[in-house]
């Protein structure tokens, strides 16, 4: 298979945006954390939902943000049965 290559313009944009001197440094770069502090913004997902080609569930907002999940966990785990 022929190699897929990024154009120089794309390389420059990415390097500048993520703060690396060389694209080969990216391999050991960690992905952005997803936590209550760096949570997913459902409003932004909704904005791009018709353009998402990946998961239908995620595109249709069928997920809880980390904050929502933690709130649900606290509520259910603390709830008492009759």
């Amino acid at each position: 298979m022929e190699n897929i290559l990024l154009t120089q313009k794309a390389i420059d944009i990415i390097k500048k945006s993520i703060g690396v001197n060389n694209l080969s440094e990216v391999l050991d770069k960690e992905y952005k954390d997803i936590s209550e502090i760096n949570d997913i913004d459902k409003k932004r997902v909704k904005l791009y939902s018709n353009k998402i080609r990946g998961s239908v569930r995620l595109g249709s907002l069928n997920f809880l943000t980390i904050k929502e999940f933690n709130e649900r966990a606290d509520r259910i785990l603390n709830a008492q049965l009759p």
Partner: protein
Amino acid sequence: MDISKEEFEKLKEIAELYQVIKPIIIYSEEIDSYSNSNLQVIKELRDAFDHIIRVITIKTGVKSNNKSDYTMLNIEKSIGHVYRAGFDALDGLVISLKEDILEMLKRYKSDIIVSIIPNYWKYRQEINQISITTAECRQNKDSGNDLKVLLSDYLKNAENLKNIHNVFINAMPLIEEKNKEVNKTKLISNIIKFLGWFIAIILAFLSIKQ
């Protein structure tokens, strides 16, 4: 591809672990009341994949790395993320099961449930204990504890909760029937009480009139 025996064993460990974790993740998504995906699980799998790709990149010669422990370090990190995906999936599983039990029982008084499930108080106590353990596990899953032991204990808890969940599912038709019966008896008793008062008032009224 040049793989040492040690690396091979670690790669085997991650593959075996994944055989346990993946069914839990799928089941956990399946029983979620709202069919929601769990972002934490997706995030952990993404990170596990990233570390494994780092290993493949070096091992296939796409890139080189001079650090001698680079491969082992990344395989171990990947294993850690697969464990955390498992813990997060089990969190979701326990929460969904308990939510379902709460939803099933919310309309009924405890005496009605006990009349059908004599062990109800024992189950209730077990569910409380599982809730406490789950909350603690959510706090401690990143600690230095033995992840295998922690996961194994957590799995036992989830299995136990699923067994209790099944007991409630099977008992629901009888609980509903008993509830209707008790409500009917209560209604008849209230009608008799009302009629009693009504007759007493009429008799009192007639006796005053005479």
